[in-house]
């Protein structure tokens, strides 16, 4: 499974790990990882990109959709472990203004 999700024991932190290509093909699986959480649950999401070797603009779109679903500004999403390439894609798009980066 290119997209996996684990949740902490108290249910407050959910980590989504992307493996391989982060593009439109994983749209449904990615959405599955967050669409059962409600904005008011105040779950912190971590998107772990360490396994991702490719990311395109449709992936940026998926991240935006996730953020909007989880409450927009109220959403707590951190993007972690991006490779140089992916980091530069996120930086050029200035996504650090919308997501925490780690």
């Amino acid at each position: 499974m290119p997209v996996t999700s684990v949740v902490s024991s108290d249910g407050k932190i959910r980590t989504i790990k992307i493996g391989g290509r982060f593009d439109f093909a994983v749209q449904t699986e990615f959405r599955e990882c967050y669409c059962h959480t409600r904005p008011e649950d105040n779950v912190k999401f971590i998107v772990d990109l360490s396994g991702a070797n490719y990311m395109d603009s449709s992936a940026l779109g998926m991240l935006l959709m996730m953020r909007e679903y989880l409450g927009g500004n109220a959403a707590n999403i951190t993007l972690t472990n991006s490779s140089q390439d992916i980091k530069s894609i996120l930086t050029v798009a200035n996504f650090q203004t919308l997501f925490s980066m780690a």
Partner: protein
Amino acid sequence: MGESQPSVPAPADNFEGKLALGAQSIKVLVVEDDLPNRFILQAILQKQGYEVIHAENGQEAVDLFQRDRPDLVLMDIKMPVMDGYEATKRIKAMSGDVFVPVIFLTATSEKDGLVKCVESGGDDFLTKPYNPVLLQARIDALMRIRDLYSTVHRQRDELAQHQKRLDRERMLAKRLFTNIVNNGSLDRPNIKYMLSPMSLFSGDILLAAPKPSGGLHAMLGDFTGHGLAAATGALPVSSIFYGMTAKGYSIGEIVAEINIKLRTILPIDMFLAACVVDMDHVTHKLSVWNGGIPVAVIYGAREKEIVRRIHSRHLPLGIVDDDTFNRRVDVFDMREGDRLYICSDGLTEAQNPHGEMFGIGRLEALFETNREPESLFEEIRASLADFQAGRKQQDDVTLLEIAYEQAVLEDTVGWTEAAQGHNVVPPATWSLNLQLGADIIRHLDPLPVILQSMADLQGFRGQRQYLHTVFSELYTNALDHGVLALSSHRKKTAEGFAEYYREREVRLANLKQGFVNFRISHAPHAAGGELVIRLEDSGPGFDFNSSPPTLDENRGNSGRGIQLLRSMCERITYFGAGNIVEVVYRWR
């Protein structure tokens, strides 16, 4: 094509139901020259509810098949006139796409005979003595296969139709897109560009337009969200870009407007990465708003290398609300011959036949090794073509080069006219008054509104560039030196310039009182018209009776100022404390 489909709905879920339905309308052709055998088969089949027709030899079978198009054939092998093998071959050929199973009736299970049955196209065998249950089971199985075949063919045909329609729509969209978006506006001596066919389809747009009083705006945009985002967004974006540029709006205002529009019409996961520039030949500056475009650089003519990199500082357009939107632009100096390059990631991600990407390294190397700036664009194009040689797939490569050439940037009359279209109104008598208080001065540039109203009233074809300059000078003086009481002497140095504008921003933001009133009247005059423009500002005025040098220092700005107004207008007169100015502008 006689497709003999049983007129039944899609296969029922239960086996019995299927049996019942199937048996009702299936037509079986029995080809058997031995009468007793034929009777036995006929009896079994009819008892099971099948409709039966019969033939005595291969030729009759073929003829009957042609005429009656049975759903299934039971074929004997040894027959006079034409045997079962030949008849089967012909029947299979005739049925084409429709699957008509042929069950061979054999008396033996000899290997050779069976092989020949299969080779002729037969689908199954039945040996004597005929077992009715076995026969029924086999017929049902074959009918299920037949249904499967017909479903697949139907879906294939539907798909082909869809595909054809999609292709047609895509072609149409591309044509519309090109007509609407390009508009011939990139056809300028100082502009070079690459916009491959795939680019348009994948959502890259390239726009350029003259500013009313010279210089230009340009934009390279990259829609995400597949062709759909581009199809939805391209028209409003280009419309806003061209419209607002023609009216004299700044690029900050233009991107803010586009952002609102796209935020409204596109879903959250679709947006427009864009780099919008303002190349101004008066201030020798390039203003840039870059949201999401990775490659934008200035190539120095003198240095023959990249002198400035224009980083993407903003989120792409269509993501955040207007209140969060940042319209700040970066400003860069440009000298004669310097070149601006912007490209989409289609260029850096263009692949060769081995799947390697062109990459930013290769592009930078080209900038580095170039000796003749004039041919740099061609060098990039050639290098890309070489790199991609042999690759079948088209990539969406979009590249824009704009050279800072004073003469070309100044000369926008022809360009402007083409962009504005025809608008001839005979000179008429009208007047326009506008009183602007501090509140509105603080947050709005009134010139586009005024100029547009005037254009709506009188057209002013061919004049707009000059009128924009005149109004710009008058209003800047009235606002900066009158209402904001700024002194222009600081503008004589580069740092002073920056200081001046910083101070101006501060004073403008804190403005609580003040006004600028416009009184504009127009009447026919000779072969054209005469425009009298009167501005009154709430400032202290100045001593306009003293000699011209003082005039320029206090009221003019470094550069053109009053001299320019004098050259364009019939006369300039000051009234009151010097806070009222009136110019007369004549046109033909």
